[in-house]
């Protein structure tokens, strides 16, 4: 069967197998039925822009497959990546709820499946289904915690090295790698993107990686990064 962008599109939320693992999607049957009737399943290629910072909110985007880059932009074009969203995350949530313009720009990093729900439909849905409303509150809480984390890292770190070390530790703490002696990180990001995540230049990231490699702190194998010396990385992250 021909599928858009090589994606296996999940047409119905009711039959979605990954639903139960996802914070927002794991809704009770009645709410899920309603959600199913108001959502539009869409596919986007890599590099597509779902919404732009400053745009009036049209609705929410539930990320089913693929990754999405969430960034904010300065007027001079400088970009800061706030987060890379993974499947299961709801995007454009706070803007849709509050009616204020989208505060971030969402751009796909891979071919993505996204379920779109119009703002009016979504607000009605929340009023009618308290379980969904609660899940939205949970999602917003997590987003808020991430934003606070970002504020801390941007506002209180001294050097770019400190920020890069923090980012690598954070990335390596996912997927149960943290406990390992030499955690591995699948770095599906360019140096430019990493620079935008920690608010520095691409050149600095390249220089820092070269420095970390020289000091045997990290090692790269293709796109996989192996953290050879966790203690040293942690020392850099805590500015000691």
């Amino acid at each position, binding site marked *: 069967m021909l599928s858009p962008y090589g994606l296996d599109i999940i047409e119905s939320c009711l039959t979605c197998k990954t639903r139960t693992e996802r914070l927002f999607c794991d809704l009770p049957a009645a709410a899920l039925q309603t959600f199913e009737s108001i959502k539009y399943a869409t596919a986007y290629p890599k590099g597509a822009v779902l919404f732009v910072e400053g745009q009036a909110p049209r609705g929410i985007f539930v990320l089913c497959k693929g990754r999405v880059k969430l960034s*904010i932009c300065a007027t001079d074009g400088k970009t800061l990546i706030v987060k890379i969203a993974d499947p299961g995350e709801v995007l454009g949530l706070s803007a849709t709820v509050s009616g204020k313009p989208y505060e971030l720009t969402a751009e796909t990093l891979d071919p993505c499946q996204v379920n779109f729900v119009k703002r009016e439909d979504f607000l009605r849905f929340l*009023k009618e289904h308290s379980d969904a409303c*609660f899940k939205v509150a949970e999602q*917003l809480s*997590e987003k*808020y915690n991430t*934003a*606070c984390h*970002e*504020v801390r890292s941007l506002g209180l770190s001294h050097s770019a090295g400190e920020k890069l070390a923090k980012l690598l530790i954070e990335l390596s703490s996912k997927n149960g790698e943290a406990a390992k002696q030499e955690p591995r990180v699948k770095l599906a990001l360019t140096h430019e993107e990493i620079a935008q995540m920690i608010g520095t230049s691409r050149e600095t990231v390249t220089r820092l990686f070269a420095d970390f490699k020289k000091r045997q702190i990290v090692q790269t194998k293709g796109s996989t990064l192996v953290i050879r010396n966790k203690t040293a990385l942690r020392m850099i992250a805590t500015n000691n």
Partner: protein
Amino acid sequence: MESASERSCLACAERPERLFCDLSPETLHDFDALKSVTTWARGSTLFREGQPARGIFVLCDGRAKLSVCSESGKNLTLRIAGPGEVLGLSAALAGGSHEITAELLDNAQVATVKRKDLLRFLHEHREACLQVVNLLSQDLHIAYDRVRSLGLGRSRRVRAPRVH
């Protein structure tokens, strides 16, 4: 100050002006039964970053400073919260530890609701849950503004020393 701790939300004159507190009589009645009001002295810490979230704090009056802290002990103020604001909400809902520190800048009356009670209350009262969603959205907008100004607002110049 004993009488103050008896303060009821039902008799609160400021309630209609406040985003969270302006609930329907029935919901408010239930909220009133869950909360307990305490008077805190200026300078006390409502919760500290890293502490497990045990509940929420509604500022009845007074102001609170919300800040984040680095491992080396440096502080960064996120914002100053005013009367009527609900603090510790995101941590209580997400169930983890507090991401920020809240310290009172004035002597203040603070209504607290335990996490367990809050979750039940929100499940039972859709209206309150919607209010909470609105509050969280606003908090998030402010946080993103802060990210924007910190991450993009300044060039690479030497930062002014911070006063601890």
